[in-house]
Structure formats: C-alpha cells, structure tokens
C-alpha cells in the first residue's frame, strides 16, 4: 500500500469557532488533487491542521497517514513521516540560512531513523542542493541567504518548492502557492512541482483560482465551502468554476449560520 493521506470527518475550531465541519478526503501517492473554494471556506485551515499547527483545535475526526492516525503527532514527526506543506505565507527566520536549515531538516530525518547517524556529508548535501536549485532555476546564492528574509513573493514560493524537492515527501500540500505570483513566477514554480510529480508523490493543490491548474493538472478536483467538501469531480469541475465563479456553490450550499 502506498502512503495515502486520509481525512475522515474532520472538525476543527479556532478559538472556539468551528471552521471545518466534517471534511472527508483521500490523497494517495501518485495522485494530484486540487482543493478549490472561496475565501474563508476553510482551505488553509485544513492545510495547517494536516501538519499539526497548534493554533488549531481538532474537535472530531481523524487524519490517517500511512495507516496511522497522526492527530496526536507533533508537526516534526508528521514531516519526517513524509508529509509536506508549502506555506501560503512562509515566515522568515533571521540567522538561519536556507542551506543550514535544509541540512538540519535532512539530518533530523536521518537521526530519527538512526540515533547514531552523523548526518549528510557537506559534499553530498551541496550536490543535492545544487541539483534541486538548478531544477527550479534558482541562483545558487540563495542557499546562503537567511530563510525567507527579504525574499520576494516569488522567491519565497520557489524556496518552498525547493524544500519540497530536497525533503522528498510522499504527500505534499501546496497552500495557495499561486497567490502573489506573476505569470512567469507561477510557471517556474509549477514546472518545478511537475518535475517532482511521479508515482511516489501525492499532491494536494489548494487554490482559489483555476490558473495554477493550467500548469499543475489535477486528476481530482474538490470544492470546499463553509468547512465541508461539497463537490468532487474531475478536471472539468475546475473549468466550470473558472467560468461560473463560486456563486453557484454559495447558492446551492448556503447554510444558515
């Protein structure tokens, strides 16, 4: 069995206010899913909860990854198990270079497998970084810059995909990776993701717009509204949303507050 991510009846609150009201979704390795929906529907909440952001409280349901309920696991454990989140708003960390950060992340994986591990050698790490940066058309000087500090919007998103390329997750969630990108940056980032696609990688692309799906073509499209997935289908569903907007979703699924 591949490393499927399965979300069952997930209910989540923030500061006592329910945001997700019973989400069911399954993303298998090798599949690309798109999760669309209007602002405030709960998409980013779902992304954060999948990685265990402590700001959110799960009130009901399960998240199963590799056959295990991971709700009680810390974010670092989930990451080492193969989950990845490309953040919508990556935070900057002064004093930590992108390269050092990624080396620590790799070494944390190696140490979790083998407490005696000395970590990846500098030489191997450099080779890996260079290869992945070239793939994403990133200047090598990026590696020496402080994590997201002073990065442009496009650079931040590219750095997120670089991290994904280096850490090689089995299921990656891309949270509005297209937001704030101009068309060239969007193309470069999307091409980067496409290069990583394959039978080993499941992807959940979270987006408000259909635009990114012209580059990263999903096999499955889901529509989230008011904390639930209200519609699922194939790529044609995304096109329909592009044409008609979210109004029909609102009309059909409006819930009395």
């Amino acid at each position, binding site marked *: 069995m591949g490393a499927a991510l399965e979300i069952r009846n997930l209910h989540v609150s923030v500061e006592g206010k329910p945001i997700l009201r019973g989400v069911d979704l399954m993303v298998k390795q090798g599949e690309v899913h798109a999760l669309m929906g209007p602002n405030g529907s709960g998409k980013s909440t779902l992304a954060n909860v999948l990685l265990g952001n402590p700001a959110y409280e799960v009130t009901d349901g399960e998240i199963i990854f590799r056959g295990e309920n991971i709700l009680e696991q810390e974010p670092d454990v989930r990451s080492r198990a193969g989950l990845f989140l490309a953040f919508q708003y990556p935070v900057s960390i002064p004093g930590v270079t992108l390269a050092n950060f990624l080396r*620590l992340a790799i070494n944390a994986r190696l140490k979790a497998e083998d407490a005696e591990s000395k970590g990846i050698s500098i030489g191997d790490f450099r080779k890996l970084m260079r290869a992945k940066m070239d793939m994403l058309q990133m200047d090598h000087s990026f590696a020496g810059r402080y994590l997201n500090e002073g990065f442009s919007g496009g650079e931040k998103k590219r750095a997120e995909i670089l991290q994904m390329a280096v850490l090689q997750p089995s299921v990656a969630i891309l949270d509005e990776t297209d937001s704030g990108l101009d068309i060239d940056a969007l193309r470069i980032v999307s091409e980067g993701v496409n290069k990583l696609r394959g039978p080993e990688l499941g992807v959940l692309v979270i987006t408000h717009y259909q635009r990114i799906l012209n580059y990263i073509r999903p096999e499955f499209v889901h529509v989230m509204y008011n904390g639930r997935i209200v519609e699922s289908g194939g790529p044609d569903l995304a096109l329909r949303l592009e044409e008609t907007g979210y109004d029909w979703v609102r009309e059909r699924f409006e819930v009395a507050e």
Partner: protein
Amino acid sequence: MVAVTRRRPTASDAPSYSRADIEALSDKLKEPTWLRESRLAAWELYEELPMPDRTLEEWRRTDYRSLRWDEAGRISAGRDSRLAAIPAANREPLAGEEQGGFLAFINGEVVHSETADTLTRQGIVFTDLSTACRLHEDLVRPNLMTRAVKPGEGKFAALHAALWTHGAFVYVPRGTTAELPIHIVMYNDLPGATLGHVLVVVEDGAQATVLVDYLSAQAQSQSVYVGATELMVGSGANLRYVSLQDWDRQMFEISYQRARVGRDAALDWVIGTMGSRFVKSFIEVELDGTGANAQVSGMFFADKAQFFDLDTQQNHNAPLTTSNLLFKGAAKDTARSLWQGMIKSLPDMQKIDGFQACRNLVLSDEARMDAIPGLEIEADDVRCTHAATFGTLEEQPVFYLMSRGIPRDQAELMVAEGFFEELLERIPFERVQARLRASLEAKIIGSR
C-alpha cells in the same frame, strides 16, 4: 546584663574601605602624586555621598540587598596568575592569526600585554592604565574621570575613582586608523572585589576597533565589580567598541560607561550582558558635536535568578546629532531584567534624531522583564522616538521549522537565536559572534 545583638552587615551599609586602603593601593602601584591626590579627593566625595537606595529614581527598582560587602568587597589579591588560566576562546586573536593589541588581566593583575608593531609604529598607545598614568600623564590625566564618568555621580562612581584596581588605556592619535583591532580581557578566578577601568581616547579623525571581555571562573563566594568605561571620540573620529560580559553567577556588577562623541564623529557600540548575578549599569552617550552619530546595540539574556538593570541615556548636546539605540533581551526561569532608557536634548538643539527601543523575549512565566523608555526634549524641530515590546517565542516560526522535521527544542532554539541575530551581526568579528552564539545557545537550552 546587657544584651548585644550584632547585626550582620547588609548591602545598604557602605563597604568598609578606608583612606588607608587607597593609600596602600596607590603606594603599591607606585603612582604619581597627581593620581594619588585625585584618588584621595574621590575618597572624600565617597565618604560624603549616601549609599544609593530605592529613594533614588535610578535605583528605585534595583535590589542589591543580597550583596554581602564583607564577603564580596575584599580586594582580590594577585597570585602570579598565568595567561593560560583564561579560557582559550577569549585569548585567540579577534581576527586572523596575529594579535593586534592584546591586554589581559587576572584578578586585576596584568598577565599579558602585547601590541603589534603595526600599531606601535602608528603612534598608538595601548597599555594598562597604571603604566599609562606613569608614562603618559599628558594623555591620561585630562581624560581620566574628568570628562566622561565623574566621581561625583554617585557613591559607586566615587568608590571607583578612589579605588580602581586596574585598567586599560587606548590612545589613537589624530588622523590615525588603527589597522588592527585591540582586545582587552578582564578575567577573575578569585572571588572578591575588582574595580576595572577602560579609557579609550580616539583623537580627531582617528579610527579604532576595541573589544573588551569580562568574565570569571565559577566561584563559591560573592564578588563585586565596580567598573568604569570612558570612550572619547574626537571630531570626525570613528570608534567601534564591543563590550561583552560573562561573569560567573556570584558576581555583582555596578558599572558606569559613558562615551563622548565629537563633531561628525561616529560611535558604534555593542554591549553583551550574559553573566553575573546582579548587574546595574549606566550606559550613556553624549553627542557633543554637530553631526555626531552613535549606534548603541545591547544584547542581554537573564536566566535562573539573574537580575539585570540597564540604564541607557542618549544626550543630544548639539544640533544635527543622531542616536540609535536598540536593546534586545530575553529572560527565562525566575530572572528579572529592567531597561530604563532616556533621550535628552539641551534646549534648542534642532534637527536631532534620536531613537531608542528595547525588545523583550519572555521565555518563562516566572521571568519578569520591564522596559521604561523616556524622552526629555527641549527643542521642536526634532525626531525622537521610542519603543518597547514584549513577547514570548513566536509559535508560527517554530511551527514552520517543525513542519520540516526539526524537533521542537531545536526549532525553538533557532527562533530564539534568530531574535538576537541582527545584533550579533553588529559585532565585527566572526569568531566572537560564534562564541556569543554558543553562550546564547547554552542559555536557551539551559535547564531543559
């Protein structure tokens, strides 16, 4: 029968020094008459001034009752210490393979004094203060506790002026750029009292970089350090001054540190406060000449039962002066920190630009941090701003790092180190940055 209760001396009793102690010290150091007289004059002042207590504004929040003068106040006696007793990281050259100027004290005794030929040829004088008083009266006397730190400022300033035990003197002549950095280490491995002094005179158009390390070995009984730092920055001169304190936890430090910055001169001052049990330090910049500029950066990290009280003052005594002060501190366990800042201007000093900020990272529920900014501006065409912020370790960056597989402890460490990074980078020596990072790391991980 008469019952006699004998009270144990407390900190509010003045330490039991006498005029004879001053005379004996002056004899031992074979001091010139002018210096002996100035010490004795300071002693007179000392006897007149009251011990500071909480009725004085600047001591209102300062509690040093746990200081036991009978134990801490004994003047440390030298015992022919060797340079090698100082931790290796504090002995290595600041940059490159060679020392520029390097002067080291142990318990107030000179154990090493070295000045590269490059500096000597430039006419730079770098020696211990006692020697300088004997050989360079013309350079020292007009500057020693006359223009920056004055004996009349308070009980401990007077005590220092009367009883300073050792010191360093740096003189960079007019128009000269000291090509190598100057490094001073004051190390103690015996408990007791030391009173160290640093006097730096950078003449008009001259440039220098000076770093001072204060540290001591773990001790079983109390120590006290009553220090003074005087930085004279001439017109158009440029001084980079770094002072790093990492005393052991039995140390009580009371220090006066003041810079005078001349016309179009620049001072870049970095202060690190990590060690000691108690710190009361007055850090002041006098912007005396038109166009003078000072940047003051402070890092502090209080843990366990440490108490840091840092008073800063930026005095704009001339028009078109700028000052920029940023302190960043953290406190954990039951530590306490207090920063009191003040920007002052003389009347009608127009077009001055002063900034002060203190950013506090509170790492435990029992820790307490206070920051009290202040402004006293008597001019209208000015820009003076202040800020004080308090926060706990931000959860979002920690989550971000953890989401990449990095365990919480390490993620928190990285974020906390990141908090100090912008100030660490203001230290112009990578080696020194590295050792400070390591000591921050040890503090953050500490009792986990």
